[in-house]
């Protein structure tokens, strides 16, 4: 009995201990909820025509989703097979970017739009019950972009043609022609026809230009070809210039190799190799490649041809290198020029050299060094010597080879502050020396015997002159001093009477009448600018009719004058006042002219032989 009670107690205790902890009721507050979603269906459209799309690089796809409910929130996933993650978008801009991470192959791409079910179930409230709409397509990935197209550039059909190889793939979108000229970078042309693999550059007329061809494929891929440089410096050049009569010159140049692109030409003339110069001709005819031109004389000209493109771009022209031309014959530039009486040679002084050339062939004969500021020379009557004076020195050179005959110190003839400023020769081969005796221009005239080395006669009252010439009888002197040419008389009392100041530097003894002088007037006179006057009486003997002109140079042996016309053109004329006819015309020149034996010389280094 006792044992049965003990075991009863033990069992009761065990059962109680196992079942005695509070256990909540099984009631989980179950609610009946409609499991059907209230979301309106979405329609996903892709902006591509096919379900399979070629992709060769980073690509943008367009999409459109219809059926959004404004009160709901949606998320969009762009899932590409094999990608490590899917971009999640909460704002839909209609464009997705895909960058392939495989070299080639097929990739499934899906647009998935999710939103909450709206059932208000527990799962819905926790955001774990979604309604999914999706659409997929296949991306065919290939990394081979279009082969880079190389631009081939050459002149063709009057323009500049750029061509390249055709891109044959189905995913062709467009060619773009990239053009660089100067600082301008532009897309010259966009071509959407794959068969059209050329472009004519209508703007190019010369110089340097670069092209590159960009081949675009659909959905954003492209490849850029290398730049091809085309450099055509063979712009039109002055081909020739030829006299065509009346002193005119015909300038011709090569036409542009791109006549279809050319709007016209401007021709400029400069007097320096690097200057652009002044416009002398302009044309808007591409085929107009010549014009008649009255050239300047006396200077070397430089012709510059500007070729203008029809297209107004910057720059829209190209210009040629300056082409030198000389209307006449180039000689050495000089400060002063002298001619031997026989007409065989001429002598020029330039800086510190005295040079001799033949007149006919303009061949160099000899050169000798002289003081740079020596400015007075004279050739003996027999033509064997050429003299020069500087300060108190008398120089003599042999005209045959400019060997120095002597250099003689004349300081014994001078007092302090006196200089020998000029030299001339008299009929008896004596030298006329102009001895400046003060700073105001007064001088004494010395007749110096270079052989005996003595002064034979001295006249006072002269004016310091650098050029002096005696008349045939030795009584009169034409001298140039202080910019004027003067006629002076040598009086028996050894004085010089300074005569009328001639306003022209062109005053000569009449070689055909020793009683007369011929003056070329340097201001326009409608009745003529050549005066013939009596030396003794200074009476006008005759006025030779000439066009109204400033006489710049004169050759009394041939009876020619050269000077600027007073007709507003600025042109110069060479005129035979004896036979009353025009010899030649040319454009204005700005150098000093000297006329001798049919040759017109310019200090700028040109001479021209005028028709006889």
């Amino acid at each position, binding site marked *: 009995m*006792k044992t049965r*009670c*003990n075991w009863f*107690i*033990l069992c*009761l*205790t*065990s059962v*109680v*201990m196992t079942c*005695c*902890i*509070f*256990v*909540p*009721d099984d*009631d*989980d*507050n*179950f*609610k*009946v*909820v409609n*499991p059907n979603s209230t979301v309106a269906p979405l329609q996903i459209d892709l902006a591509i025509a096919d379900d399979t799309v070629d992709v060769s690089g980073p690509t943008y796809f367009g999409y459109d989703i219809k059926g959004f409910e404004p009160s709901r929130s949606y998320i969009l996933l762009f899932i590409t097979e094999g990608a490590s993650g899917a971009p999640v978008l909460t704002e839909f801009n209609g464009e997705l970017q895909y960058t392939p991470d495989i070299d080639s192959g097929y990739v499934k791409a899906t647009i998935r739009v999710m939103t909450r079910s709206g*059932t208000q*179930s*527990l*799962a*819905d*409230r*926790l955001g*774990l*019950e979604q309604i999914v709409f999706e659409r997929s397509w296949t991306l065919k990935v290939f990394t081979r972009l279009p082969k880079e197209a190389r631009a081939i550039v050459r002149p063709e059909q009057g323009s500049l043609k750029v061509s390249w190889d055709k891109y044959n793939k189905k995913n062709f979108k467009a060619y773009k022609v990239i053009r660089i000229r100067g600082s301008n970078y532009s897309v010259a042309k966009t071509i959407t026809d794959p068969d059209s693999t050329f472009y004519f550059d209508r703007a190019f007329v010369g110089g340097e230009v670069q092209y590159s061809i960009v081949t675009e494929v659909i959905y954003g891929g492209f490849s850029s070809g290398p730049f091809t440089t085309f450099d055509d410096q063979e712009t039109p050049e002055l081909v020739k210039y030829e006299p065509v009569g009346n002193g005119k010159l015909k300038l011709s140049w090569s036409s542009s190799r791109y006549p279809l692109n050319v709007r016209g030409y401007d021709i400029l003339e400069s007097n320096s190799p690097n200057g652009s110069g002044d416009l002398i001709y302009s044309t808007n005819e591409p085929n107009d490649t010549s014009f008649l031109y009255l050239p300047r004389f006396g200077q070397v000209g430089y012709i510059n041809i500007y070729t203008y493109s029809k297209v107004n771009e910057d720059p829209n022209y190209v210009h040629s290198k300056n082409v030198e031309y000389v209307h006449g014959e180039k000689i050495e530039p000089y400060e002063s020029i002298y001619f031997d009486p026989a007409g065989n040679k001429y002598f020029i002084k330039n800086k510190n050299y005295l040079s001799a050339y033949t007149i006919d062939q303009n061949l160099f004969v000899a050169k000798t060094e002289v003081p740079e500021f020596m400015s007075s020379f004279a050739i003996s009557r027999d033509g064997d010597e050429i003299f020069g004076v500087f300060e108190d020195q008398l120089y003599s050179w042999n005209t045959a080879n400019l060997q120095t005959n002597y250099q003689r110190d004349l300081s014994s003839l001078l007092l302090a502050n006196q200089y020998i400023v000029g030299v001339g020769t008299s009929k008896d081969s004596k030298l006329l020396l102009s001895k400046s005796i003060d700073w105001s221009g007064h001088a004494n005239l010395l007749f110096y015997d270079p052989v005996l080395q003595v002064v034979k006669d001295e006249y006072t009252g002269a004016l310091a002159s650098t050029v002096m010439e005696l008349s045939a009888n030795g009584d009169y002197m034409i001298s140039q001093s202080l910019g004027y040419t003067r006629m002076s008389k040598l009086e028996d009392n050894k004085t010089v009477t300074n005569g009328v100041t001639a306003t022209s530097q062109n005053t000569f003894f009449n070689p055909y009448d020793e009683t007369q002088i011929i003056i070329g007037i340097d201001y326009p006179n409608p009745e003529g600018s050549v005066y013939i006057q009596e030396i003794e009486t200074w009476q006008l003997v005759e006025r030779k009719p000439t066009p109204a002109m400033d006489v710049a140079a004169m050759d009394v042996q041939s009876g020619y004058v050269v000077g600027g016309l007073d007709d507003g053109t600025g042109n110069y004329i060479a005129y035979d006042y004896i036979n009353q006819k025009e010899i030649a015309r040319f454009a204005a020149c700005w150098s000093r002219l000297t006329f001798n034996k049919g040759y017109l010389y310019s200090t700028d280094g040109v001479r021209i032989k005028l028709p006889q």
Partner: protein
Amino acid sequence: MKHALTIVFLVIISGCSLAQDRFKLTLGTGLGQYKMDDPKEIQDTQENYLEGYGLKRVENFPMYLYYSGEASVRIQKIISVGLIYRLQSTGCKSAYSDYSGVFKIEQIVKANNVGVLADVHLWNKNKFFLSGQTRIYYGWTVLKYKEYVEIYDVDSGLYNSTAELKSESVMINPDLTFSYELTKHFFANLSVGYCIDFKGDITNRGQTVRNFEGEVLQTDWSGFRLGLLVSYKF
């Protein structure tokens, strides 16, 4: 461990010889009412925080059985003293479920109490006895807090979080016990009383748990007790 000690104690006692009628073993169960104001506040706070999920309180610390085991010895004619062990528990539950899943928040509170008792015989007639008793015990309370969410057919739809909080407190439980002598040694007892819990601070890994106002939360086992026990005297 406590269960094992109780079983061992009862086995030992059952083997003791019965003599002099001074010893008494009592086993029983009863229904206790448990105040648990602060745990209720925890549940309220969570329900408010998760208001949008439709949670409803299906259990709210109801009256629940407690279990006692006592051993006493009469030291005087009418006074007995002894040792007592009592196990009590209750809990609460808030839940919501539908076709898609279930969401539950549960608290299970249990206390192991060990203490002493004093019994004073008050009256008896024939086989009926009346005594007044006072029990003073120290209780170790464990509160298991559990949040459970399951969404059916969703891989990431299971959430199960538990926390075990503890508290310790002193309780005093005076009551009146009516006994009926069934046999010379067995008695049936009915006790009516009230437990006063001096409350214990709820701790989580040694840190006291506070509400948003910063007040310390406590367990409170206070409430009426109605017990039905069987005694064996020897």
